């Protein structure tokens, strides 16, 4: 158990510290574009993806996928380098924050757009019968996109091996879900004939264990499941967002229940400091390597593309 706690803590801390490093690099003017941070949501990425193999399973992410990427590969230079537009980046500077690939993990920047694609990946998994499954991450904003509903219907009709993972942080950008969303997610999902599970993602170990059961069930039965993770985003929607729409009370509740902080308290303090140092060093090293990495050469990157 201690080993598990330390391993989850290390992975979650790597995500949080990398996100903080990204914020710092932005304030120093070293990054272009924008980012969508996932501070506060780390336990879902880590809890779920620790049970998957990106060589066998397919995973789709969204605009807020830094955590998913790091949970899968643990290589901060892939992310930092990508944000700097460097060759060392996950897709060599082609994609930036929102368009990342790592093995069978793919993200894209259109809200909900990867969910029907995940259904197609699940169709391939089923037809090939190699035991692989699909996990599709999306946020509560995507729950109001039409093609996401179409994807649920397709996955249910075709009985595909897919786990839909809703990271519900309550806000679609700045818009409070309560003002835009009729009914509730549970009844929507059940209406599609898909089994629904809920996790108040405040306890990383519990989240990890529940995810293990869900992944195992999808693998065994080959049919769709839906998991809603109630979570909180301490990052702004994007880098320029001062989070005026989030109340003090909500932040206070989640500060007390922050899964990373809670997990940290369950680890031997000496071990914890050691992990913290190692993670800091890993990120520092990734930062330096990313800065040293060259920019892509447009002539090479677009070679043979213009027709």
């Amino acid at each position, binding site marked *: 158990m201690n080993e598990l706690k330390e391993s989850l803590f290390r992975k979650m801390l790597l995500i949080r510290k990398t996100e903080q490093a990204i914020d710092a690099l932005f304030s120093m003017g070293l990054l272009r574009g924008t980012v969508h941070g996932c501070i506060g949501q780390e336990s879902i990425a880590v809890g779920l993806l620790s049970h998957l193999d990106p060589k066998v399973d397919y995973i789709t992410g969204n605009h807020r996928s830094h955590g998913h990427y790091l949970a899968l590969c643990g290589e901060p230079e892939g992310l930092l380098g990508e944000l700097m537009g460097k060759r060392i980046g996950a897709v060599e500077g*082609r994609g930036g924050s929102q368009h990342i*690939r790592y093995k069978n993990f793919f993200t*894209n920047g259109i809200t909900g*757009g990867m969910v*029907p*694609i995940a259904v197609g990946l699940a169709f391939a998994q089923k*037809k090939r019968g190699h035991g692989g499954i699909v996990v599709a991450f999306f946020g509560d904003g995507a729950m109001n996109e039409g093609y996401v509903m*179409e994807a649920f*219907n397709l996955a249910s009709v075709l009985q595909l091996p897919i786990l839909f993972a809703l990271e519900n942080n309550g806000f679609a950008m700045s818009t409070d879900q309560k003002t835009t969303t009729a009914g509730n997610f549970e009844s929507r999902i059940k209406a599609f004939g898909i089994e629904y599970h809920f996790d108040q993602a405040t306890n990383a170990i519990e989240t990890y264990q529940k995810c293990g059961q869900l992944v195992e069930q999808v693998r065994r039965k080959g049919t769709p499941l839906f998991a809603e993770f109630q979570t909180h985003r301490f990052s702004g929607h994007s880098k320029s967002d001062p989070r005026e729409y989030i109340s003090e009370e909500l932040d206070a509740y989640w500060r007390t229940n922050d899964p990373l902080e809670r997990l940290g308290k369950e680890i031997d303090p000496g071990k914890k400091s050691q992990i913290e140092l190692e993670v800091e060093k890993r990120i520092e090293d990734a930062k330096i390597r990313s800065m040293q990495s060259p920019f892509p050469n447009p002539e090479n990157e677009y070679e043979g593309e213009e027709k």
Partner: protein
Amino acid sequence: MARTTYIENLREGLKELLRTEVEAFLLGEDIAEPYGGAFKVTKGLSTEFPGRVIQTPMSEQGFVGMGMGMALAGMKPVVEIMFGDFSTLIVDQLVNHGAKFPWLYKTPMHIVIRTPMGGYRGYAATHSQSLERLFFGQPNIKVVAPSILQDPGRLLIHSLQQGLPVFFVENKLDYPRKMLEQTKNFQDLEIQRRGLEFPTAQVQVAGFEEPDLTIITYGGLVQMALDLQWKFMIEEEVAIKVVVPSQLSPLALNPILGFIRNDPQLLLLEEGVQPFGWTSELYVRLKENGFEGSVSRVGSKPLVIGAAQVLENHVLPGMDRLEETIRKRVEKHE
């Protein structure tokens, strides 16, 4: 693919794909038996290839996205959109997803979206349009149009090997038409082709090789162009050359230039709305590449296609309008 009609030729192509590509699948609405597709293109295939024809709900965004996912996994889906007009619904999955993956993720995407475009059948505003223009010029989307001159089945097979999404523009009026080599005029025609996978074809009437005018068009309007070519030859001894590319975007310019470089005048013809259309781009590119003759254009007017025949005729390019344009051009030239 030596089948008599366009639709048979196309269906043969689909069959060959299903026979030779173990991971080829057909997706679409009402494409399985007993219906076999709104235009019967996939008739019989769900029986002949069990499990390979996936009849989908009416969720164009959803099942095109599913096709993109299958292609991302390395499968080879062919997705039917029942009417070309419905391709407005799938723009996001094509433009923002499928077209981005080959370059962003360095992974080939073998997927064809095939759909019938075009009017002249009284289907009115939302079932008659030629909306392939939505995808013209989009990076990493190839727009291909077969015709009675260009083996639809063969083009389809090539389209699935491109490694990037292909938007495959069929034409409703073309389905029952005979392939050109099956028609009675065929023996009097001289046909040349340039290009391998998506050839551009040139049709001339034997003995009329010095064109008074050259029509460049594609897809369903090829028949109209050939009818006029024949009519002008018989009635007025006017020589019309017809040039037909099958790859519309990116524009296959060199084969076209090869056929028309020394021709005196061109008439660019498309069924889509003319302003900002395919012929607009073609016009500019021909001029940029040194074509010196005169060029005129005929396309649809930028108006909603009405239901009544007189309204439809007013909007779409028809024989009368085309004939009048040709006559003026030819007289002026003489």
